[in-house]
């Protein structure tokens, strides 16, 4: 089903997350930050709300992902270009799509593993009350789709340059635009410039709206389509870009 070269790349990449400090740094920062913001002592905090759910957890997921995922994605291709290994890799009997897919899937699996590390938070909620497991499951599923979308954007900007910092900044900016596309200030500004159908089209591009609607425990076909299109679109764009511009 999956090509042997894609499998070999997934295996190599996953291993490299744990033989270099990157994997550990990412996991520790992510778990510490998400643990803190979920149970933060402020208004709207978990203990003040007295509800056995993970709404505070999922509220912060996009804001952590917006920095953490571009920091994982930035090296994917920029590093290969910088060190010249891209020439070694792409002169092996592999096609560009197989290689892009391998690296993308490996990074996605890695983030899924980091998400799995937040299970103790679920156990805490389960111990304190009777949460709706369906909503929690859907929240995790939506988080995974969100991670995939950001990762696809990050892959594209990693393929564009050999400078990892440039790749990081561009990915964060584009992820932010997609995340905030539906926010009132942006929509109001747009409505003074464009006709109404353009504005509502832009609103549909908002990652946050799609993410939150799934987080409420509702699966709309349009949300699934949206995340699917984001991931496929950006990954496909990365493949075309790399095929067109392999060398510097």
């Amino acid at each position, binding site marked *: 089903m999956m090509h042997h070269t894609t499998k070999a790349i997934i295996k190599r990449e996953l291993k*490299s997350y744990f033989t270099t400090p990157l994997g550990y740094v990412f996991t520790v920062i992510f778990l510490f930050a998400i643990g803190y913001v979920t149970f933060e002592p402020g208004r709207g905090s978990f203990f003040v709300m007295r509800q056995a759910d993970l709404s505070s957890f999922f509220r912060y997921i996009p804001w952590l992902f917006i920095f953490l995922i571009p920091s994982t994605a930035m090296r994917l291709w920029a590093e290969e270009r910088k060190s010249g290994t891209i020439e070694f890799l792409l002169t092996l009997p592999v096609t560009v799509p197989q290689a892009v897919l391998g690296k993308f899937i490996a990074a996605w699996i890695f983030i899924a593993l980091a998400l799995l590390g937040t299970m103790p938070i679920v156990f805490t909620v389960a111990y304190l009350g009777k949460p709706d497991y369906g909503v929690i499951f859907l929240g995790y599923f939506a988080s995974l789709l969100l991670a995939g979308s950001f990762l696809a954007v990050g892959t594209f900007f990693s393929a564009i340059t050999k400078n990892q910092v440039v790749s990081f900044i561009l990915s964060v900016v584009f992820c932010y635009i997609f995340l905030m596309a539906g926010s009132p200030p942006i929509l109001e500004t747009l409505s003074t410039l464009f006709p109404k159908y353009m504005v509502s089209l832009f609103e549909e591009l908002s990652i946050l709206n799609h993410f939150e609607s799934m987080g409420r425990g509702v699966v709309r076909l349009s949300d699934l389509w949206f995340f699917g299109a984001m991931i496929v679109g950006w990954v496909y764009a990365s493949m075309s870009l790399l095929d067109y511009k392999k060398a510097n």
Partner: protein
Amino acid sequence: MIEVSNLSKNFGNIKAVDDVSFNVNIGEVLGFLGPNGAGKSTTMKIITCFLKPSDGDVKVAGHSIHEDPISVKRKIGYMPENAPLYEDMTVVEFLQFVCEMRNIDLERRPSSIDGVITKCHLENVKNQSIETLSKGFKRRVSMAQALIHDPEVLILDEPTDGLDPNQKHDVRALIKELSNSKCIILSTHILEEVEAVCTRAIIISSGKKLFDGTPSELSEKSADRKVDDVFRAITTSLDVEGVTL
């Protein structure tokens, strides 16, 4: 084995390779000579399907780089310039990865890996991570990955660049040993290397092929048999004393 026909590659307005044609057969060791930026590496990158040519075609064992790049890549072992490697892996892990990418049979993998480790003298460092190795060892790892599937075609971009005299000697000995059964193209700046290992030499400059012949034909052009002088005369089109082109 390798048929290069009317190959051209433009980067913007710069013609990196300009209408170059040549053939190489099994048993031949072709030395690619030329000043820096002459188009040697670009030509090699096109043959190995890393870059697409602007015009022309290359056939390796009958497979065209346009129609069937995967079959071309299977036939070739390639050592890129500066030997780029995944430095976080150990030598054995790296070679294992290349075996997986090249789909070498599971039973044959241990013997393939051991074979190239012995051939490239990597026994003592095989479990070390690549980033801790010296330049010479990194070159040998890159050579090992190029040889692991016993390819009929070997393409080596400056294989001895930056090596000490002993290491250069080892690499040349290895190339000679392999040359009977393979078709080898290597690029180099070191003219004595051409006389030592190559059966044929091609000089390119500014993307154009300027000489194609045996190393002795090259040195015969100089009254004192100084290949350096001939090289200068050909690539700069200046009059060099004692050289008749």
